[in-house]
């Protein structure tokens, strides 16, 4: 039973330690720990848990004690045990080694990869083993064995042989487990297979000998010889798995070189002890299957396994030493190169995290020098804000911008590199027509790396070395990669800055909107005989529409609606100016035309050439119902009579700011309308009539629809009429996003002695009154 399990496990010896973390002992129900489970489960199931490990180690120890007892019995009887007994004993030996291998692999194998540590363990183990063996020899003297039967003469000899066997097995197992991490570094399917085959044949070659006693000649067994031969071939294959050496820094290469050499010596000496003949102390040699060695007396399979393991250890250490010796001279160069590459990578990573453009630019320009690849470097970037496509030196290290300008035609170089999209390498910079430096100016070779992010040229990174031919292919490759990352980092920094700017603008606009909202009337005036409502919906954050009311004397109400051409911020400023003019001028004149003419003169100085304001201003006398108004290019006033007729009143006039001379006054006419009680007039901005039916025909709302809607709803109070007009507009347009600012003011004259109290004018939640 034990033998079967050993065979199963042997196929995957030492390679399944990664399974361990996933199988905690308490996570496994007791039933899954049966030996009938698959290999992947067996080892963790066997080795997981401290108590179980202690138990298994005790089993190994017990096996060892029993073996010692067996040899003691033989020694006391004076003749070797029967064939059956021998097989049983050897199977016990193999089982114990297998169990010990599993336990050791579990303890040592799960460590992270490190070549020095991987060699340190077997080195120490071999040294300790050698020390133990040597002290045994010193203390116990020569081992006395019956040369004919291989039976030890006394208890002391048995102890000596057993301890030596134990030490050798331990060293062999630690050696194999440690070498495994090196051999399977950068593992492939093939390398794992070779390793397993090697272990398998080693175990098989040992198992063939289970029936052999101490004095049986192993070399008569042809199967055994064939297996050993296969194992040796596989050992040679595995001995050339040395990829880990290439990646070692110089000091570690030196350390591993020493460890390997020490390992070779220790293992050879241990083999020497193991293979040492008995009685005469004459050395039989290192041949496999040598007659009557100390280890063979203990157990032939053990001797075989240990010999092969040591042999492989020596072989592997030897190839490693040779390879290390070959690699030592290149180690310094490799280390420097690795250092440069790591520095560039670190800087590239760093530049991805820096959003401060100035700092980023300095980091990028300094990187080739900091990494030790170049002696001077500078960054020339295209500044889009300047409108010029010529790159400017933004940051430099090792040379000043003045020196750079004197020594190179960097603009042309940057342009050439950007045009080609490839790094531009001047191996002998002074010979190039774009470089003015002479030999001795410290500019022997020059590398120009184009910076392109998302197909947009950003500039170029320059790196120079004092010697000509100073940049190797891999330098160019590494710097080109760095330049690619640097360009993206710069691009990110720009986008980040743009986003910050946009957010700042959005905040400013939100403030502007709030300020502007306060420029519109917060409360509507309350006058006997008139009821009002008003609303203004901006198309953007801020708008150019304006409406306002002013009380003139006890009975008159002035009302203005204005619309600044264009939308947005500039419109909002003009709107604020219009409010100032209106608020002051409306107190000085009773004539709407005069007010608009004055407003035109006041605005003439500040309005841009292509800007104008349309406005309509009217004064309603609540006593006699006379409505006097003038129109400066604004939409006509819609007047709904109580009798059901609706007219659009269109007095002549130019927009404010369209003419700064007398033409404005000449074009402007003032009209007077006699209202009847219940008559309503509606003032609005062009955003109302120009609203499109986006879902359907694309038609404008237009004056006819407005007139129809006013006629239909004319009997409503101003607030209800306003809402009805807006909902009519919504129904027409099919959306509530306006292309233009939209303002609506409704005024109803109730008559000289209004029977009903004036509608309370309070602000709605949406800002309309």
């Amino acid at each position: 039973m034990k033998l079967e399990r050993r065979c199963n496990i042997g196929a995957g010896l030492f390679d399944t330690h990664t399974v361990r973390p996933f199988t905690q002992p308490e996570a496994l129900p007791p039933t899954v720990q049966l030996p009938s489970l698959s290999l992947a489960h067996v080892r963790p199931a066997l080795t997981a848990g401290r108590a179980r490990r202690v138990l298994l180690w005790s089993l190994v120890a017990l096996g060892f004690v029993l073996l010692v007892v067996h040899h003691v019995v033989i020694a006391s009887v004076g003749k070797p045990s029967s064939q059956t007994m021998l097989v049983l004993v050897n199977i016990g030996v193999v089982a114990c080694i297998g169990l010990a291998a599993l336990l050791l692999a579990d303890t040592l194998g799960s460590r992270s990869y490190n070549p020095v540590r991987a060699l340190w363990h077997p080195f120490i183990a071999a040294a300790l083993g050698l020390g133990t063996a040597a002290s045994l020899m010193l203390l116990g003297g020569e081992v006395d064995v019956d040369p004919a039967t291989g039976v030890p003469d006394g208890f002391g000899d048995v102890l000596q042989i057993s301890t030596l066997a134990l030490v050798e097995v331990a060293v062999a197992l630690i050696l194999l487990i440690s070498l495994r991490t090196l051999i399977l570094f950068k593992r492939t399917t093939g390398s794992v297979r070779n390793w397993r085959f090697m272990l398998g044949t080693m175990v098989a070659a040992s198992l063939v000998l289970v029936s052999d006693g101490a004095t049986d000649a192993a070399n008569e067994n042809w199967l055994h010889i064939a297996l050993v031969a296969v194992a040796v071939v596989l050992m040679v294959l595995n001995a050339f798995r040395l990829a880990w050496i290439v990646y070692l820094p110089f000091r570690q290469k030196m350390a591993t070189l020493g460890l390997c050499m020490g390992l070779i010596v220790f293992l050879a000496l241990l083999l020497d002890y193991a293979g040492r003949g008995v009685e005469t102390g004459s050395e039989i040699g290192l041949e496999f299957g040598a007659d009557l060695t100390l280890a063979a007396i203990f157990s032939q399979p053990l001797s075989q396994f240990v010999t092969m393991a040591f042999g492989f250890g020596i072989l592997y250490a030897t190839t490693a030493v040779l390879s290390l010796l070959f690699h030592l001279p290149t180690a310094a160069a490799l280390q420097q190169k690795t250092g440069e590459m790591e520095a560039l990578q670190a800087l590239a990573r760093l530049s991805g995290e820096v959003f401060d453009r100035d700092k980023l630019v300095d980091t990028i320009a300094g990187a080739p020098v900091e990494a030790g690849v170049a002696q001077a470097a500078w960054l020339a970037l295209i500044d889009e804000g300047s409108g010029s496509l010529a790159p400017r030196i933004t940051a430099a290290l090792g040379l000043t911008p003045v020196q750079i300008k004197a020594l190179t035609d960097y603009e042309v170089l940057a342009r050439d590199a950007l045009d080609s999209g490839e790094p531009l390498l001047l191996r002998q910079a002074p010979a190039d027509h774009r470089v003015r430096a002479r030999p001795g100016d410290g500019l022997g070779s020059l590398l120009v790396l184009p910076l392109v992010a998302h197909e947009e040229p950003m500039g170029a990174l320059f790196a120079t070395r004092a010697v000509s031919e100073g940049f190797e292919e891999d330098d160019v490759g590494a710097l080109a990669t760095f330049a690619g990352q640097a360009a993206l980092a710069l691009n990110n920094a720009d986008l980040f800055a743009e986003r910050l700017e946009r957010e700042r603008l959005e905040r400013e606009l939100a403030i502007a909107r709030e300020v502007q909202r306060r420029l519109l009337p917060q409360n509507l005036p309350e006058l006997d005989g008139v009821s009002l409502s008003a609303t203004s919906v901006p198309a953007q954050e801020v708008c150019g529409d304006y409406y306002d009311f002013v009380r003139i004397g006890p009975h008159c109400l002035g009302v203005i609606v204005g619309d600044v051409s264009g939308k947005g911020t500039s419109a909002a400023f003009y709107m604020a100016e219009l409010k100032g003019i209106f608020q002051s001028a409306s107190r000085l004149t009773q004539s709407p035309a005069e007010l608009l003419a004055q407003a035109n003169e006041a605005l003439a100085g500040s309005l841009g050439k292509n800007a104008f304001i349309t406005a309509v201003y009217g004064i309603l006398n609540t006593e006699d119902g006379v409505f006097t108004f003038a129109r400066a290019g604004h939409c006509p006033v819609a007047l709904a009579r109580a009798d059901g007729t609706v007219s659009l009143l269109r007095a002549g006039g130019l927009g404010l700011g369209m003419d700064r001379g007398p033409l404005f006054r000449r074009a402007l006419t003032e009209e007077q309308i006699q209202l009847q009680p219940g008559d309503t007039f509606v003032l609005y901005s062009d955003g109302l009539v120009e609203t499109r039916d986006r879902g359907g025909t694309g038609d404008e709302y237009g004056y006819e629809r407005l007139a129809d809607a006013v006629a239909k709803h004319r009997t409503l109070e101003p607030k209800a009429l306003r809402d009805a007009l807006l909902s009519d507009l919504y129904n027409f347009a099919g959306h509530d996003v306006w292309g233009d600012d939209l303002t609506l003011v409704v005024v109803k004259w109730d008559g000289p002695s209004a029977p009903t109290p004036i509608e309370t004018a309070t602000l709605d939640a949406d800002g309309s009154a």
Partner: protein
Amino acid sequence: MSSFSVTFRTPDEHVCVLDLKGELDAHTSGELEAAFQKCIDDQRPRIIVHGGDLQYISSAGLGVFMAYIEEVREQGGDIKIAALQPRVYNVFDLLGFPVLFDITDSEAEAVERFNADAA
């Protein structure tokens, strides 16, 4: 969304006809500005804006006329607006454009006016 185009025509060596097509608003007014500027740069200040295919004009579009009229007149030329559709004409009219600009029914009429001005 809204499409707009300006095309140049020079029926004779004195006038420059700009055919407007589509919707002239804040987004497209730059094209008309560029067209006016080109006429000024080419020393062809006698400009006829043919609005037969103009579907819509916003206040920003109207502002372009305001912005260039002074400079064109200083050069001895004028901007005359011809063949507007009634709805578009209404927008010009409300704003008082007929007071400031020659607005004619047809391009031929505008050319005649130029010739009359020159005479």
